[in-house]
């Protein structure tokens, strides 16, 4: 085991995948200069050991124009003809530019063509919410991609998962979208020295518990764990489950947990309406209804766009306090309904360029 940051784990997975298979290429804006920190060695300096351009050459590290639609489309076409591209789209907010290619080509081609195509292509992007990056740089759009059959959706919440899931993504013959959480970039964790991969569709039980199941997504996972620790002190035992992949979704693990706890809270940083939380709630309301002892409560980002001001933004996302309140609510305590404005926090800031 070695300790790695979430961002470092992504870089390491990319490097190992590129070393393992010559057909793996990286395509994206500013990947040559390692602007987003996943195509270099440790640190961001080209001089440092491990610069991708030096290691793999410009034939495989493809610095692109700002043309998301053709970048995504070309990666799909390349995947259909023998390459295994990793496309770095930097911010998740830029995915909309290529929506037609995601939905009409990536998701449909194999199916429409009766299995003639396989599409080993990974689309990476980072969600920058909570960092005062403004409405054009704060999207968490995975729910809309979950509604598109044919895509696989990955939402790692730890360095270990980020590395193992990304490796699986590259090795899979289907199109995968990974949504990385920028707020977790700096988080550190243990990662095996040797290469490994994590199968899709297997949730991780982050913390065991008996009173309430909290299914938490992406950056809500550490918040749920923090809430669970606090609640443990209050005598409430919380089980925290991280689905890790939203498509495929480990329905069985969630249903099994709820069948034991009888209560479900879903913490999801996406906007509320038609969120991943909505889906998980609906699955449980259909498949584990008999076990339910209390309403299913969603802790999501409310249906508003993301304001820039540090005085406005932070209150919007699921945090330990809202999750804690939701758990208390389903265990019978009377609490105010989240989100209640938290007042002005000091803003986090990030070095990531926009």
């Amino acid at each position: 085991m070695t300790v790695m940051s979430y961002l470092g784990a992504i870089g390491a997975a990319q490097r190992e995948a590129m070393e393992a298979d010559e057909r793996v290429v990286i395509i994206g804006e500013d990947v040559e200069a390692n602007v987003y920190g996943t195509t270099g060695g440790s640190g961001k300096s080209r001089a440092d050991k491990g610069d991708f351009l030096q290691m793999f050459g410009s034939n495989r590290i493809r610095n692109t124009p700002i043309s998301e639609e053709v970048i995504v489309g070309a990666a799909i076409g390349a995947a259909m003809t023998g390459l295994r591209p990793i496309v770095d789209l930097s911010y998740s907010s830029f995915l909309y530019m290529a929506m037609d290619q995601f939905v009409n080509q990536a998701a449909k081609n194999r199916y429409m063509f009766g299995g003639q195509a396989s599409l080993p292509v990974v689309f990476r992007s980072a969600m920058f919410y909570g960092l005062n990056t403004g409405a054009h740089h704060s999207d968490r759009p995975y729910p809309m991609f979950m509604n598109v059959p044919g895509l696989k959706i990955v939402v790692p919440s730890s360095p270990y998962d980020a590395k193992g899931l990304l490796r699986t993504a590259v090795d899979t013959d289907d199109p995968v979208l990974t949504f990385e959480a920028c707020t977790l970039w700096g988080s550190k964790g243990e990662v095996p020295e040797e290469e490994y991969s994590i199968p899709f569709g297997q949730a991780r039980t982050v913390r065991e518990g008996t009173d309430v199941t909290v299914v938490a997504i992406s950056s809500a996972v550490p918040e749920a764990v923090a809430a669970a620790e606090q609640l443990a002190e209050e005598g409430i035992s919380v089980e925290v489950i991280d689905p890790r992949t939203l498509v495929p979704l480990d329905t069985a693990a969630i249903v099994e947990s709820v069948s034991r706890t009888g209560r479900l809270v879903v913490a999801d940083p996406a906007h509320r309406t038609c969120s991943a939380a909505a889906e998980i709630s609906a699955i449980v309301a259909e498949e584990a209804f008999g076990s339910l002892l209390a309403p299913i409560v969603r802790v999501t980002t409310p249906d508003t766009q993301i304001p820039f001001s540090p005085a406005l933004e932070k209150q919007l996302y699921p945090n330990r306090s809202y999750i804690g309140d939701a758990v208390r609510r389903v265990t019978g305590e009377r609490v105010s309904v989240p989100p209640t404005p938290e007042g002005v926090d000091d803003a986090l800031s990030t070095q990531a360029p926009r």
Partner: protein
Amino acid sequence: MSLTNEELLEMQRRMVRIRRFDERASKMVKRGQIPGTVHTSIGQEAQVVGACMALGDDDYMSGNHRSHGHPIGKGSPLGPLMAELVGKSGGVCGGKGGSLHLADFAVGSLGESGIVGSSIPIATGAALSSKVLGNGKVSLAFFGDGAANQGCLYEAMNLAGVWQLPVVFLCENNQYALSTPAHTVTSGVIADRAAGFGMPGVRVEDGQDAMAVYDAVSTAVERARAGDGPTLVEVVTYRYNEHSEGLRLGTDYRNADERTQWLERDPIVLFRRHLVETGVATDEEMDALEAEVLDEVEQAFQFSQDSPFPDPEVAFRDLYTEPIGVTS
């Protein structure tokens, strides 16, 4: 770039194949034997086949809603195509694609696209893969004058230009996008757009002349294969039929005279005359070819009728390479 006699005959054969296949498909739509509609390439055969013959068997192409002409031009057998239009299990996509949305990977057809413009990046990506893998394959993207106003074309042209990708952008300018005359929605000349993206732009004014198309596209393909990057080829042509079969529009957006004039320069008639005049074939041989193709189309029709419908359960296959258990 000179063709053998066999190749010249093959050129004519493919054009006739498209014509007869599409005529048959049109009839089938009218008789309710094909669900939905089809878009024929009738009148545009020279443009399609002239381009396809300039490609090698292993080369790639992508297309659009006018979707059978392209694979036929590239050499697809007719039966599975016809069965696909009917939605049968013997269809080239097992009935899952249907008209507009089919592909025949066996002949390098990476997919026709029902979404106007959407397959241009795909062909560009195939060219990227050729470039990275160094396998010498060329890609060609077919699209219409209407699609030439989709932004992704210019993103693709730019990307292909900077990376010197082996791709040919082939605009089938049949002068209309559905009911809309190209000149009312196109600012400037399509072929002229190439220059600003650092590549040659060629306009084949007589797109009914298969050899003219062949020559222009061959130059582009050679250029691509030599590593000199992309070319934009605009071919001026005309569709004889309505935008799609069965469609009836209230307005008379195309003038009748115009159609008559184009009918006088029928690409199949012209090329047949050329072949006979240059001694490549006799009139009898040409008649025989036509008869053979008619027979082939009849067999394709029979195949489409005899092939069973897919099992309903097939709807739940092929979404992913490893099924993730979607059944309800």
